[in-house]
């Protein structure tokens, strides 16, 4: 389904500030699998997500989606198959436009970019119906600016937009990190519902060990641009938050030692 082969990304190459974000990283994700990605800040998670989504071009290596090489494909072209939710609730929506217009943009992914009305009656009815299914009462506020909504509401809508047309791959980039615990839990349960309902292949970055243990089929831990642990199946099910924190601290300690040598 998704295959990453020997991805390398180096920022500021050759300068004292050289940062090896991805070091020959390879990863294969199979159809319908839900992978949780863990790692410290600077471990290369964002570069990895960027390389898959197309906002970062890797220096070496290739990205395959369903067998075809998409490494050089522009971001907006591969967006047809990839849905993405960002960490910052402000990043996923156009704040000055209405809720319905934002959702209409997502609906356009399935074709219809020409001179048809963005908010044609049929599309508007579908928007109302799907927003109603979120049970947040937003269907009454479709004409409001999306910028007026809370972070949680915006993340829920971004999730809805990313999965409006069933994507082959869903990227969740710490999408609950900026929310308070209660809202985060709501968005998480919505994510789970959508992912399971549409059996979406998902790559989710999180800093919450609790989420990592409770969700997904597989845990991949990154450090300094490489994958250091990979748990799936029974092994993953047995993992506890405590185990993960221990592993995390080991890696983190190593990172600190490394930093001293720099």
């Amino acid at each position, binding site marked *: 389904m998704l295959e990453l082969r020997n991805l390398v990304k180096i920022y500021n190459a050759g300068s004292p500030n050289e940062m090896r974000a991805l070091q020959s990283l390879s990863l294969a994700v199979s159809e319908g699998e839900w992978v949780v990605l863990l790692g410290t800040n600077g471990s290369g998670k964002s570069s990895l997500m960027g390389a898959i989504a197309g906002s970062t071009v890797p220096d070496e290596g290739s990205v395959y989606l369903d067998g075809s090489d998409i490494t050089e494909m522009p971001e907006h072209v591969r967006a047809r198959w990839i849905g993405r939710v960002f960490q910052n609730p402000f990043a996923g929506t156009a*704040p000055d436009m209405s809720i319905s217009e934002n959702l209409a*943009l997502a609906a356009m992914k399935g074709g219809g970019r020409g*001179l048809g009305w963005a908010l044609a009656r049929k599309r508007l009815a579908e928007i109302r119906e799907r927003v109603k299914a979120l049970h947040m009462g937003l269907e009454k506020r479709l004409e409001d600016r999306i910028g007026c909504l809370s972070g949680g509401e915006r993340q829920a809508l971004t999730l809805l937009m990313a999965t409006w047309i069933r994507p082959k791959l869903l990227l969740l980039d710490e999408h609950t990190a900026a929310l308070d615990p209660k809202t985060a839990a709501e968005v998480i349960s919505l994510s789970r519902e959508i992912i399971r309902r549409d059996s979406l292949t998902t790559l989710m970055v999180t800093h919450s060990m609790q989420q990592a243990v409770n969700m997904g089929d597989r845990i991949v831990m990154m450090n300094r641009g490489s994958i250091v642990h990979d748990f799936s199946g029974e092994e993953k099910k047995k993992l506890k938050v405590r185990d993960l924190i221990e592993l995390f601290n080991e890696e983190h300690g190593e990172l600190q030692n490394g930093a001293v040598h720099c």
Partner: protein
Amino acid sequence: MTLLIGALVMGVILSFLALGIFVSFRLFNYPDLTAEGSFALGGAVIAALIISGFEPLTATLLAFICGCIAGACTGFLRSYLKVQELLSGILVMTSLYSINLTIMGRSNIPLLSDTTVITILERISDRMLGVSAKAVLLGWSIPCRNLAVFLILLAVLAVFSLALYLFFRTNIGTAMRAVGNNAQMVRALGVNTNLMVVLGIGLANGCIALSGALMAQYQGFADVQMGIGMLVWGIASLIIGDSLIGIRSTGLTMAGAIMGSVLFRLLVSIALQWGMNPNHLKLVSAVLVLLIIVFPMMVQKKRKKKGAEA
């Protein structure tokens, strides 16, 4: 009173400029200096075509298209070639100066004895109402032909802005607005943001060139320098419109831009009538824009300070 009508007509013509600046400056958040070149480009194209005997309506349309092409060049430089925002506009504006001179063959072309869109409108009015017909408005008598030119241009402006407004409610128009609002998100939703910038800045400069073409026909000459200060002029109209209307929906902001443009031109006419030196006009409009931007910020700061002291 004729002066007032003259100011109103100019205000209506400059509303096309304000709509163009609305697209680039408001929707795309982009202070596009191409405006200065494409306004003069509109004038240059119309003048060159009319003196070579072209039909004025078609010529006006061609001026619009030329403006679109100039703007698309800026958009291309900015989005595909990744030239710095301001620089892309400056490069095209500077090239347009030479291009306009080449189109015109000299720096100024008078159109006083030629058939223009304006003389066509006047002729229609003369035929229907008689050459020396006068209308009485609020106690003043005005030549009907001047009033007819104003009303017809106003109607054209209304249709044009309605079309523009409806365009921004289509799929492609909505995507265009979103690019100025949050390009990262729109790209993640599969929109070719580069293409949208090319089309959008193209459209903006088409409106601006149209304004330049109408202005050249109204004042009876085209000058290679007629575009200087037009970006600030457009921004001033937008800001005045914002303070008149103050709500940020696309339709209302557009209506505000038109009202701002007409009002600004009226204020300028009054100032000139009172004896302001026309040479100071650009300085005054730049200072006005500065004041309108800075003044609310200073008031806010003062209020905050007061709040802190209390």
